[in-house]
């Protein structure tokens, strides 16, 4: 079939079998390989993309159902070549280890933070429950997302006259993070994670 779709604001037209997975259309036909395949059965969320603004598992979307749709993938998150605040927050919190879940995590987190499809009382934890991290970095991931959640919430509330104490902007380089962690008494779990990460990297 002739499939037309708009991905990250750009129009595409490709000839594909109607039951080809959206995931494969993105990766093979459009060469947008940021979206990953994890389980291929809708359990892990690695292939998460937005289809007409709704979070979906692209491994379970047949091309025929994406015809004419607006798709957003991880490649669309950056702004004019610069990482988005959410992506920078992931870096700052070391919210990636092997990185396979990251594109899906970022897209699901973006969808959650935008708030359109959110259920009453839904937390980041519930919204991201379909995104599995095999390296078990959930605490860092949720830290990265919830830090982005606060400004949006504050904006929705009526402005308060109370002045906020000014803090110097934190640099988000890896060295700055490491320095901060060294300064702060880290929890036991965190320091174990940090060591295992470092030792894996050096191997």
């Amino acid at each position, binding site marked *: *079939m002739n499939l037309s779709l708009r991905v990250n604001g750009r129009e595409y037209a490709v000839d594909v*079998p*109607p*039951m*080809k*997975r959206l995931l*494969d259309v993105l990766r093979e036909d459009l060469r947008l390989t940021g979206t990953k395949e994890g389980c*291929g*059965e*809708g*359990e892990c*969320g690695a292939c*998460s993309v937005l289809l007409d603004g*709704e*979070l*979906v*598992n692209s*491994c*379970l*979307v*047949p091309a*025929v*159902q994406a015809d004419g749709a607006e798709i957003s993938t991880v490649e669309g998150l950056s702004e004019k070549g610069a990482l988005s605040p959410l992506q920078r927050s992931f870096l700052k919190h070391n919210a990636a280890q092997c990185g396979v879940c990251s594109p899906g995590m970022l897209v*699901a987190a973006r*969808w*959650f933070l935008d708030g359109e*499809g959110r*259920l*009453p009382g839904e937390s980041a934890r*519930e*919204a991201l*429950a*379909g*995104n*599995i991290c095999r390296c078990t970095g959930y605490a860092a991931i949720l830290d990265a997302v919830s830090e982005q959640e606060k400004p949006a919430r504050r904006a929705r509330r009526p402005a308060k006259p109370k002045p906020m104490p000014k803090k110097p902007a934190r640099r988000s380089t890896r060295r700055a993070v490491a320095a901060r962690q060294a300064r702060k008494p880290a929890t036991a779990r965190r320091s174990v994670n940090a060591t295992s990460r470092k030792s894996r990297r050096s191997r």
Partner: protein
Amino acid sequence: MRGLLSHLEVGVPATVEEAVTCLGDGRTWLPMAGATDVGVWLNAGRDLAGPVLSLHRLRPELRYVSVENDRLRVGALATFRDLARSEGLRARVPMLAEAARTIGAAAIQNRATVGGNIANASPAGDSLPVWLALGATVELRSAAGVRRVPFDTLFVEYRRIDRRPDELLTAVQAPLPPGRARQYFRKVGTRRAQAISKVVLAGLLETDRGRVRSVRIALGSVAPVPVRARRTEALLTGAKLDAALVREAANTLRAEIRPIDDVRSTAAYRLSVAGNLLAEFLAPA
């Protein structure tokens, strides 16, 4: 969805009328809504008996949740997020809104449909005990007209509902439970999200001066199809709801259902949990 899929024929009807015309042409069509089950089968390499009928263009006709005039009516293409988001449903049928919120996770809830969950008829389908407890009816459309099938006779055998090949499941409806009725839904699985249930129990209870006026108890994952616990219901109906009755009801339920050992759980665990869930549901307020 790899080698085989390039040969698959897909029909894309634009209206319900076009869809039932297709279904009536004598071929074995597989209706596909959100593809959260069909996609999994294809990814696992399963071959399909015939062409696929993709229903996505029927959304304007079949995607709605209506709570009014003492009736709940849900279009077959309503998603579980649609159910969880519906304010009317959360107010009047919280057990269905809660069930919808426990199915898969957000990305599945955004795609998986009410009609698909029913037509696929998994014994572990989480919405199915709720429909049973509500006393719901499905509507099946064909060129010959509309046929209504109550949930009590809908599940014919493992993963098969009473639907002819020329029929399309278009809607579900149920009377709205009275405001004073107690509603209960609980799913027990390995984790809250993405887990297929070990036991699901949905219940609807009306009492009158301490006595059970009416009760419906439905369970999933304890039999080849979702079931009502009719002996337990009979024991409870008209009886005084106290701790002794709750104990007796839990024992009756454990004698009435015959769960199996499988990859997700054991019969013994399921029996034990089913009785506990019933006791939680009936616990004197």
